[in-house]
């Protein structure tokens, strides 16, 4: 699977990372190499093999339906770059 610059730009948009044209070209090379290398998995016949969903083979633990968290707005906002009136302020979303 070879990548071109358009594909790299598309992935970068999905990942919300701005890439310059130079970076995109470098990534075409780097990502291309890595993807070519992982292609070798195609050599293995995996028909009938279950994908490993979880390393620990057990039931998902469940919590009781109790309120025992939240109610800590000050600590929640303590690291915010722009806390404002109890909110996380961000640039306006323009539709």
């Amino acid at each position, binding site marked *: 699977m070879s*990548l071109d610059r358009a*594909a*790299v730009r598309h*992935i*970068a948009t*999905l*990942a*919300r*990372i*701005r*890439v310059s044209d130079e970076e995109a070209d470098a*990534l075409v090379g*780097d*990502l291309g*190499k*890595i*993807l070519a*290398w*992982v292609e*070798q*998995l*195609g*050599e*293995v016949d*995996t028909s009938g*093999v*279950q*994908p*490993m*969903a*979880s*390393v*620990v083979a*057990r039931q*998902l*633990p469940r*919590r009781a339906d109790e309120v025992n968290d939240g109610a*800590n707005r000050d*600590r*929640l906002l*303590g*690291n*915010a*770059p*722009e806390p404002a009136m109890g909110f*996380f302020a*961000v*640039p*306006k*979303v*323009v539709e």
Partner: protein
Amino acid sequence: MSELTELTMTEALAGLAKGSFSSRELTEAHIAVMEANRGLNAYVTETPEKALAMAAESDQRRKAGKAGLLEGIPLGIKDLFCTEGVLTTAGSHILDGFKPPYESTVTAKLWAAGAAMLGKLNMDEFAMGSSNTTSYHGNVKNPWTRRGDNRDLVPGGSSGGSASAVAARMAMAATGTDTGGSIRQPAAFCGIVGIKPTYGRCSRWGIVAFASSLDQAGPLARSVEDAALMLQAMAGHDPKDSTSVDLPVPDYRAGLRGGVKGLRIGIPKEYRMDGMAPEIEGLWSKGIGWLKAAGAEMVDISLPHTKYALPTYYIIAPAEASSNLARYDGVRFGLRVPGASLDEMYENTRAAGFGAEVKRRVLIGTYVLSAGYYDAYYLKAQRLRSLILKDFTDAFETVDAILTPATPTAAFAIGERMDDPIAMYLNDVFTVPVNLAGLPGISVPAGLTNEGLPLSLQLIGRAFDEATLFRAARTLEEAAAFTAKPAI
């Protein structure tokens, strides 16, 4: 005073119990070495006042007869563990200024056991790397250098700061995390002991996530006994981590000197790689000899899917990382780079905040999970993972532990292997399969290269059978009689 930093943790605990010295003196001694060796850049954040305060409290507790498992021991903490009120960076620019309002479960257990925190240790950014050359806070240096060559060497990674600090006696032991080898490989490069326990043995709550199905916390320490003691304190079920297993933590030091008589040790043929350095081959043979002499039985085994482990890992880990790192967006914590719109703010923040290796892996991960490619890459890799686990499960029908080299080479110079991302990935060829299978693995220093650099052997065990690993590792440690230390 400097003799205090030459002690193992076990020896230090005996000295503290006898009253030969206090935790304050022990901690001061380590703070002095930490301050004298800033050139290694092992610590991102030094917390000497906090360490001394904790040491003072420890001395009080000891006087009152309340000594915990690690009472009074000064430790270094990998900067991937959230420590309440103390800067936690994960080696990244994007977590600038982040002071967690909570303490990770593993570190909380260490403080409850009576230990003191010297500081936060440097690491590859978001635990992605095998050389500690991707940290926003600069490279970490290995305290070891080649004989007759003063080039700076890498300590390994991603727990490079942890390994460097313990080897250079800037901490009695340190926490690390291991996703593809990040405890075992730097421990090997720095000539100390490192163990990655079974997946689910330690809680991941409060540890900055890289790849959720692979990450596992573990200790780096100066001896097998120290590692066993530290794991004892770190391990245990946590209801806040759904992947942590509710099994009792055995006394890991109990059977430590039990020896290996009658133990069946597997030697996997696929780990003998083309072009393997003769020194590595030689050490592996020596290790086989030591275990045989101690009464173990060597069994040739095959782990047929070994060569597919690295590419499998480099699909799964980046995929999980792309999901785990989506939270770093400049909204709630860490770095924010302004943008005209919300999307622009996200893109600018992440472009500026993530280093090159992290970006590569997030992008690969995004790609392999994207529409149209999920089945071909991620699902395929998950199937390979089942096969790799089955290789081990089958092997453990006929053996009790597996012996392999820990790394394909000794520590290399900073700057080498930087051209090709894949060359760097090959450092983890012996360690990665163990994470994919969720099994425990320990690396034990066993010899020196001709240039005077440490080399280690790795033992791999059955799930939750760390006790057998410690027992076999102790036998190797005794036989190897590795006493070399880097000059600091």
